[in-house]
């Protein structure tokens, strides 16, 4: 099946026969997926087609009841979410999930958690046991703030800044974890055209700057077709098409899923 070019690249994420039920609802009906290292991989499909469920399976929220998930050939299904995060998966959420009691800067610093050694004792002796580490990680966070142009709002509490910026802060927090696989769940939902263009630019910058593999769920087809290397189209828990964005989206099965084809009832 795989061409020689694909074999040469290592697979960042491989999902095999993922099944997930919610009570009587069969949300994922055994799709397979392989995302290559360095790829921006789009996941599209109508509402309720199982995109977010798949992402939740990968990040450990809803572990698949059947099937296996590999991150760089290491099986990760069954691990709790924080263990999967430590393996190098970071994500953003469809509806922003920032820590409202913290400033923008502190939110991004939480992203460094897996690289730090938090302890109550070090907190007591901050000047001797924590300061150096804090400052080193602050410098790394400042690089991300610089990359995503968040300097102006650095010290603001997150709940007072506009949604577009909040989504950018969430991206920054995910980037701060230095993930090998970044999962973006509708990063442009609820944004206007300008904010959308900014976000696309930031995603491309981050991809280039940090050598990332990105799994992107997005409903804006213009975004998907212009930045994704490959896409998979989901409908009703099954993968109905996969490949180069324009080809996949014009696939008759996909058109049928979205607007109803001649064979659809």
């Amino acid at each position, binding site marked *: 099946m795989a061409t020689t070019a694909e074999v040469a690249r290592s697979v960042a994420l491989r999902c095999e026969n993922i099944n997930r039920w919610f009570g009587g609802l069969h949300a994922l009906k055994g799709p397979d997926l392989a995302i290559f290292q360095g790829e921006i991989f789009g996941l599209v499909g109508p509402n309720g087609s199982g995109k977010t469920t798949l992402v939740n399976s990968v*990040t*450990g*929220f809803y572990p698949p009841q059947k099937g296996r998930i590999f991150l760089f050939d290491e099986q990760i299904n069954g691990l*709790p*979410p*924080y263990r999967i*995060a*430590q393996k190098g998966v*970071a*994500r953003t*959420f469809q509806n922003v*999930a*920032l*820590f*409202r*009691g*913290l400033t923008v800067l*502190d939110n991004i*610093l*939480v*992203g*460094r*958690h*897996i690289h*730090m*050694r*938090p*302890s*109550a004792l*070090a*907190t*007591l002796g*901050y000047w001797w046991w*924590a*300061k150096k*580490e*804090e*400052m080193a*990680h*602050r*410098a790394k966070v*400042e690089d991300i703030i610089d990359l995503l142009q968040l300097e102006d709002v650095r010290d603001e509490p997150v709940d007072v800044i506009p949604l577009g910026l909040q989504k950018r802060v969430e991206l920054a*927090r*995910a980037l701060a*974890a230095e993930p090998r696989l970044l999962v973006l769940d509708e990063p442009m939902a609820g944004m206007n055209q300008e904010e959308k263009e900014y976000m696309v630019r930031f995603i491309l910058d981050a991809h280039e700057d940090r050598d990332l593999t990105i799994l992107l769920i997005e409903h804006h087809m213009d975004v998907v077709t212009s930045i994704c290397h490959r896409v998979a189209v989901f409908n009703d828990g099954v993968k109905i098409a996969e490949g180069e964005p324009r080809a996949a989206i014009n696939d008759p099965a996909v058109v049928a899923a979205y607007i109803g084809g001649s064979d659809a009832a």
Partner: protein
Amino acid sequence: MFYRQSGIYHTRYEATRRLWPIPFERWQVGVILLLVLAAPFYLSALYLQSYLLPWLIWSAATLSLTLLMGVAGQLHFGYAAVMAIGAYSAIHLVRFGLPFEFAFLGAGLIAALIGCLFGAAALRVKGLYLVMATLAMQYLVDWLIINVPAISGGAHATLQAPSARILFFSLENDLVRYYFALAWAVLLTVFLLNVKRTSFGRALVAIRDKDYAASVIGVNPFRYKLLAFFTSSFLGGMSGAVLAFCFYRAVTPEQFSFNVSTQLVAMVLVGGLGSVIGAFLGAGFVLLAPMILTNIVAMLSDFGWLNVSVNLLSHLPLMIYGALILGFLLAEPLGLAKIYDNIRNYFLVWPFKHSRR
């Protein structure tokens, strides 16, 4: 009005993360520290021993509880039981022959272990159910202390704090007791202030605000909830020991009853959840307001300005006190700390109100 932020430029990350980045506020803290250090020399023994000392100790206890309730967001309605474990452990360990320093640490450790035992069971549940679980701890510990003579010396018994020395100073001395309590309060203050700028504190806030987002960024929610319980109970137990040795000098189970737990929760809430200055303001308010109100009401009736029955006279301070708490929380749900913050921010830019972002 008194000082401004303008003209203060930080050029290093360390400088922006100082405890008080504004120089004037560092002076303020220094002056307050000098005032409390010198308190024994200008305050009468009565004020020192019955107002300032309990204020410091209860502030320390409130700081330990606000780490759990305010920073980590885990409600605890049985905190007096944690302090009781600390107080009784310290006394028994000293009686057993341990030096006070070790007994003090041991008291914290025992309180932390028992607190964690309940914490681990309780952390499977959230919110109101956690309140119920911690209430169960309160009543269980109360019952054990009262009914096991080996701990309390029998029902209705008073357990005298044995004489002990801290470093080379005897705790029989009023001054030593005051300075020991002060040192403990300062240590806890420093700890809580540092919590706000380290990865440990950020992880606690993360599980408080959005536990699923915290876990997806690599914070183990269960571990950090348990750590919060452990650390807070450790400090609470030690605060209980300080209370027993420096203030009460003799402990009875009633001193750590459920009423005290609610009072501690009130201190945290009135002061402001998770705030350091709020812990001091809240403890001060809950502790001192009833006393001051009683004095005022008594004074008014002495002058003949308050012609009410004796019965009402004794209840009036409590009624005003309750109304004040309600009033404060209605006006500013984030407590006295937020009121202080509002005033501070107002004067920081006064009279150029428009320049505030």
